Every structure is written in C-alpha cells, then in structure tokens.
C-alpha cells in the first residue's frame, strides 16, 4: 500500500486527503451509527493533517475492541496485538525508532482493566508516545459489560467485590507519573483535535482520555449526559503545576463536573537516543572481541 508520499509530495493542503488512503472505506466502517469513535477518528485526522505528519512516519498501535479498529480506518502504519498490550508494543517500537510518530489507540477496558499493568508502568517510563483512550464505560465489542470507568456519574454504593466502583483515569495517570494528562470529548472533535495536537507535540508520554459514547451499550453516559457534565478547563490553569492539576481535579469532582482540556503537561528531561541499528550495513561490523576479555 502506498502512503501517497511517493505518488505526490505531501503539501499541507493535500495532507488531509492522504489520510483516507490505505484505509477501510468510510461506508465499510463497522461502528454503530453515532458511535463516539467516529468523532475520535475525525479529530485524529484533523490533528495529523494539522501537524503535516506523513502516514509512513506514523505507527498506530490499536487495542482490541470497537475502538481499536480505528487503526484501519485511516492511513498510516498500524499494529494490533493482544488485548491490553497496545502500550507495551508502542513502548518498544518507540524505543527502537524515536523517529516514528507512535500513537496508541485503545478502549477503556483494554487500557484500564486488562491493560492497567502496562498503563501504570508506561506512565513511569514516559516514552514519547501518545495514548488516546476511547472511554465509553463499557466493553463495547463484547456487548456492553462494565469497564473500570463504568458508573461515572451514577450515585450508588459498591457493596460487593464483584461490583467495584469506577476509578479516575486522570488521577491514576498523575499518580503513576504521567507527564501529559488531558481529557477530550468526541462530541466536540474540533476541540479534541486541538488536544491531540498538543499531545503529539508533547515530549514524553501523552495520555488523552476521550469521552467517546457507546450509543448501543451505555445508555447512561450519553452525548447529552456528557454535554451536561463536561466543562472546559479554565484558561488560568497552569498545566505545568502538578499541585494545580490535583487541585483542579478535586474542584471539578466537588462540582460534579468533568474537565476537558490539558490537566497536566510537564515534560521530563530526557536523553536523546538514535534509531537502533536495523540494516546489515549498520550491523555487520559489530566486534565482540572486546567482550571476550572478561572470560579469561
């Protein structure tokens, strides 16, 4: 599949259209009509077009779920492995080739249930990759079971081990040391796109939790419900200030609101690394003689 780069140079104008190539044609996309993931797809295309990224320079790693299918709905390299593993593949790919724009796209079940083992540690490792979670509170693809964010906004007691309360992805990310933590709403793709752009520009691990309603299996956290509960982060907020980030989350929680925008963004000093050797030319004259001395 050509990335279009070679057939035509990729000037800003042309860029947008390139992203429709090497992708499942629109009419064959198998999301339910109205699925929030359409908004994420639109926002994602706006973002990569805005940044004039070349598809061949991109590697999208999809989770398993309705959401993860997004990887095949636009141009760019795509990989998809096991449920919950997306972040770990992305970590390795980025460590191997820092020149790639690595974007991880997964669901809330994939990332926070089975995938939390990777989420927590990738926040600590801070690879320069983006994670967009399509958070719909359910396991869509398996027909609507509860995900770790299910119950958002529902006022009830959680009295049995079988039925744990939801947790906050943003707080978990901050606790684990994520250097970029943001939230968006696929009901507002333009705004979401702006946040994705910042995430892609961030040097380090950039986590965007996107409210992406499941119109089929989550009848509570609907578009309307989100519209009533989301609120943009005030202009005054300083994302670099971790304390302010926590305070902001506390304040929104108290007021029963869901923040949209960048909660925290504070890049860590990192050591620059080159792409690892791949080609024979780069590998052929590896001399192991110096290693042999230690065995004498």
């Amino acid at each position, binding site marked *: 599949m050509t990335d279009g780069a070679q057939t035509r140079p990729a000037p800003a104008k042309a860029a947008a259209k390139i992203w429709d190539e090497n992708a499942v044609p629109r009419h064959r996309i198998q999301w339910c009509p109205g699925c929030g993931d359409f908004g994420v797809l639109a926002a994602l295309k706006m973002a990569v077009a805005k940044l004039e990224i070349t598809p061949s320079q991109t590697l999208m790693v999809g989770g398993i779920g309705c959401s993860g299918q997004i990887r095949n709905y636009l141009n760019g390299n795509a990989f998809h492995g096991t449920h919950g593993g997306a972040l770990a593949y992305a970590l390795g790919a980025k460590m191997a080739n820092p020149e790639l724009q690595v974007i991880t796209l997964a669901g809330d079940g994939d990332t926070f249930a089975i995938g939390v083992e990777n989420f927590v540690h990738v926040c600590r490792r801070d690879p320069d990759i983006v994670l967009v979670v399509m958070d719909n509170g359910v396991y869509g693809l398996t027909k609507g079971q509860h995900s770790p964010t299910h119950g958002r906004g529902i006022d009830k007691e959680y009295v049995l081990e079988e039925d744990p309360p939801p947790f906050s992805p943003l707080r978990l990310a901050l606790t684990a040391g994520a250097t970029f933590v943001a939230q968006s709403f696929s009901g507002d793709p333009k705004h979401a796109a702006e946040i994705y752009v910042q995430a892609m520009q961030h040097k380090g691990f950039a986590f965007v939790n996107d409210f992406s309603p499941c119109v089929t299996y989550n009848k509570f956290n609907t578009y309307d419900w989100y519209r009533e509960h989301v609120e943009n982060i005030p202009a005054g907020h300083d994302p670099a200030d971790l304390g302010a980030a926590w305070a902001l989350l506390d304040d929104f929680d108290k007021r029963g609101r869901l923040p949209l925008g960048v909660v925290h963004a504070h890049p860590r000093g990192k050591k620059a690394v080159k792409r690892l050797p791949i080609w024979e030319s780069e590998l052929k004259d590896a001399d192991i003689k110096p*290693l042999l001395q230690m*065995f004498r």
Partner: protein
Amino acid sequence: MARGLCYHKDGSVRVITNNLKLLVGGVQLRDGVLTVTDVLGRIFTRAGLYVLEMERGYASTIYGAHQYDPMVISAQQPLSWGDPYVDILIALDFDSNPDAKDQPNRDTVLRHGRDLKDGGVLLYDSSTGEIPTGDLERRGVKVFPIPARNIARDELKKDVVKNIIPVGALFRLLEFDADVSLLRGLLEERFLRKGREIVDLNLRAAARGVEVVEGVLAARGWTDAGYRLDALPVDDPRLLIAGNEALAMGAIAGGCRYYAGYPITPASAILEFMEEHLPKYGGRAMQGQNERESIRAALGAAVAGVRSMVGTSGPGLSLKVEEFGVSGVTETPIVIVDTQRAGPSTGMPTKSEQADLFLAAYGGHGEIPRIVLAPATQEECYTMMVEAQNLADKYQCPVFFLTDLNLSEGRKVVPQSFFEQYPVVVDRSTLLREDDLARDGNGYKRFAVTETGISPRLVPGTRGAVFKVSGSEHDERGFVSTDPSIRKAQMEKRFRKMATYLAEDAKPPKVYGDPAGRPVLVGWGSTRPVLLDAQQRLAASGTDVAVMHFTHLWPFNTSAVKPILERAASVISVEQNFHGQLADVIQSYCMVPVTRIVKFNGLPMYVSDITGGVNQILAGEVAVVRVGVEAPVPVKVSEGD
C-alpha cells in the same frame, strides 16, 4: 567404571595427573563457594587445563542453604561431567548443621562424603574443631583439616581472605603453581588498584594454606595426595565461559539490538549482560516490569524493524504464551530464549530440567508456525544464536532457543579463537528497501501469498508504503477478514514457511555411530556430552549403541529422522523430564516405539544414569527408567522458592 586411584599391576599406587573432579561446598552467600571456584577455574584455564563446571548446586534462597560447585579438570577437553563421584572434596563450611547435631560434621562432608572416591582427598575448614573422618580414611581418603576461618580472622585479621587459604592448600597438594605466579597474576589483576597490601595479604593467606598442608603431609608421612595438576603450554588464549554469556554474545554478533527480560533464574544473567553491553553496540536492553511487558516491547521493537529478543525461564514463558500467537499471525520475528529450569509452576527454580519442549512446540491457542532450537554446548549457544537471529528474520515467526540451567550457568573452556574465527552472517534480505517499493509501486502487500510463504517485510518509516498488521486474521494487505478462502490462503501461506524451513535451513539431528540394527540413544540440548560419554562407556563394556542428538527440534524433521530410526534395533530417549517429551514427538512423527530414560529430580544426567538405564532396558526389564534414588539426603534443610 574405574573408581579411585589406579593401581599398577605390582600394586603400587600411581599419582593421577591432570585428570580429576573436585567439588567445593559451603553455606550459600557466606562461605564464598563461587569465589573459590572462580579463582580455581580461571587459574586452571590459564594453566592450559580444560575446566568443565556444568553442575549447579544452590538453593532458591539467597543465604544459608548448602551450595556446591563440582569441577572437572583435565588435560584434554573432557567428554562430559561424568558421574557424581569426586576425587577432591573441599568443604568451606565450618559450623555444624543444627539438624544433624548427632553427626558432628558439616553439610558438605555429610552430603558429598559418600561421593568421594576411595583414595580421594578431603580438605575442610576445621576452625570449629576437627571432625571424625575415620570412615573416609578407612576408604583411603587423605584428610586435610584447615582452620581457614580462624587463620583469616585471628592471624590475618581479614575474614574475606579465608577463601584464598584453601586455594593455596589445594595448589600445594596438587603440586600446582609452586611459584605462585598464576595466583599472583590473578590477584594483582583483581586487587592491585585497591593496593599492593591486599594482594600480599591474599598471598600470605595462600601461603598459610600451603604450610598447613605440608604440616599434614609431614605428620602423616605422605609424599603426595595422589593427584597433581601440571600446567600445560597454551597454544592460544582460552576462555571459561557460561552458556548465557555465549548466547548473549551470539545475539549481539547476530544483530540483535533490542533485548527485554523480566528477572528470573537462570535467565537474569542474560538481561544483566545485555544491559551492560548492548548499548555499546547501539542497542537497548530493558528490564520489563512484568513478563508480558518485556515480550510485547520486544515485539514492538521488532515491528519497528529491529532484531529483537527476550529471555526468560519456565514461568515467564508460560506468561508469554499469548504473544507467541501475536508473533505467528502478525509475522513479527522474535527470538525467545527459555533457560529451562525444573517446573512445573515455581517448581525448583535452581534445578535444571528439559521439560518445556511441549510448551515451545505446542503452546498457544490456535496454530502458528514456529521454530524450536536447543544448543548442546556453550559453543552452540553462540553459533546457533546467530542462526536463530537469521531464522527469525527469514521466517517471521517465534524462534525458541531452549537452554537449561546447567548449560546457561555452567562454564566450559573454549578457545578464544573459536569466537574470533566463527564467520557471522547477518541476513536481512526479507526486509523491503525503499527502492524495492519504488520498483513494485503502489502494490505493497504485507502478507502477500507467496510460494515460500515468506512475504517481504516493511520497516515503518520507509517512505512509499505503509503496513496494516493485525493479530486478527487478515487479507494480503493486512485488513481484517474472515472470508473463508482468504483465511485458508493465509493459514496455508504461514505454514508453507515451515516447509521452506525444513527444505532450506533445518539441520538434521547429528548421528554418532551406525544406527542400523543397533539401539539408538536419542536426546536433545545439553545432554549430548553425557550421551557420547555413555556411548563410549557402553562400547567399552561391549554394548554398541548409536546416538542421535537433536538441536533443531521443531518443526520436526520427519524425513531426516524416520528412515534412520526405522533401521534401528530399538530407540531409547534420554531426557531430563518426566514424560520423555521428545520421545512422544518422535512417536507421533515416526511411529516407532521409543523407550525412555528420564530424570526429573533436579540432578544432572550422569553417565552412569544412562549406562545403567540402557542395560536395564536392553535386558528387557522395563520400557521406562526413572532415574533417581529413593533415599532422602542425609541432612534436612528447608529451602525457598
């Protein structure tokens, strides 16, 4: 088989030169067993002797268990580690085992004294008093009590030098390194930067060891200990190297530039080696936060085009199973090292076993192409790892590299020239270059259906094309599909790679001796040395057997094996597991009955286990011999995980 001293016809005793097995034992972490054997091993190697240190004796706890480390030393490369019997026993532990109060002696003597050959040598730390060794002396054992701990503590005022005292003592009674030049050399390398006095102190310690031995010799009126080692001229420099070290170097030489592992015995050493050295070659090594992160990150690096590897042992391999399928279906190359240890589950983490063949060959839901290799020696850990790197790249599937604890941690003398002269080839011809793309234009198909089953692989970032790769079934371009004909085509394409492998790359098992009409001993991986040793010993006792040894286990090379085994008188599989896993595979593919000699008690396979088992089986007594004594060890100590 000959035990103990050699007697002339006239009955006088000859001194055995450059051919002995010694065992050093003591309390783990406290008594410096490995410090002593490392010093001995390196010095003997420099002296032109061949050292083989393939039996690991330690517990899965850090402190307090009994540890031992046997070592074969000889003028020629020894055929194998042979049998449990030792010529010289060095007991570093100086206190009594509280669970053996009634027996006022030490774990090491108590556990290994029975393996000491008649006329052998016992050298023990007598700091807390001498011990009754009458029973041993009655067997002609020469006993040398040395209060090493006390000498170090009270005379030399430095506890750690206690380890050098028995070294000096041993050298004296072997009449080895009389001018201390070798020992001084090693000590200077190690301690000179810390100051000359450290070196001198250690040399004094060694000298005290010499004095004590001479005291005993004089007192007992012994002219010698019955054994001696003579340094030999060294043609070219020699290395004393472990399997893990050899395979790690093989990976680097073979182009691996990304390594990930989660610490686990006995694979951790590979991770530590890679963390220290891979960056020097432009690569990166990562300690995973769990077993899956490590293999997933490695797969991610491989997707990015880098040769990538993970190393683990049993439990970690079990936790990686789902990723075998990812590698298989997404056709992402990965080398998976499994340093087998005794399972199942946590099992016996510090004991060696060969019981993961089933998992490597059959593990995972659904069906994928895969290659399973098992080197037999440190040399093959190096050369076959280079091969593994190329095979993974060519066949774009998981390549399993099965060692075991004894091979991974065990050390052997290998000439340095072996590594310097081995012709390493790195072949990445299944990767697409940008100009290839330009040539065949827009039509790039990651999973193109080809004759060989191999589809050219795109490195992401290459301008001109992109891939869509999925763990779900897919069409040639990589888009998800369940179209029955596409599914069939992709499954068959993937498995055609195995046919190609068997035709182009699979190495048939090595056959030693003529199998026709003879019993054939089959084995795989690290047991080759004992198999060949047993073959000779059996021949000496009038039983001719052939040996068939596998390093390339999977896909099974039926056409190379079946005709040979069908001509054999009988087939006896020798394996360190319960079932005889290779035996089952052979029966499945060759449909010839395979009798078995299996050992799964954590101890190495000894030559006498095989000769004994073969005689039992050939006598028609049994079809399966489960090696191992029923008597528990004389000293009970609890152990950890």
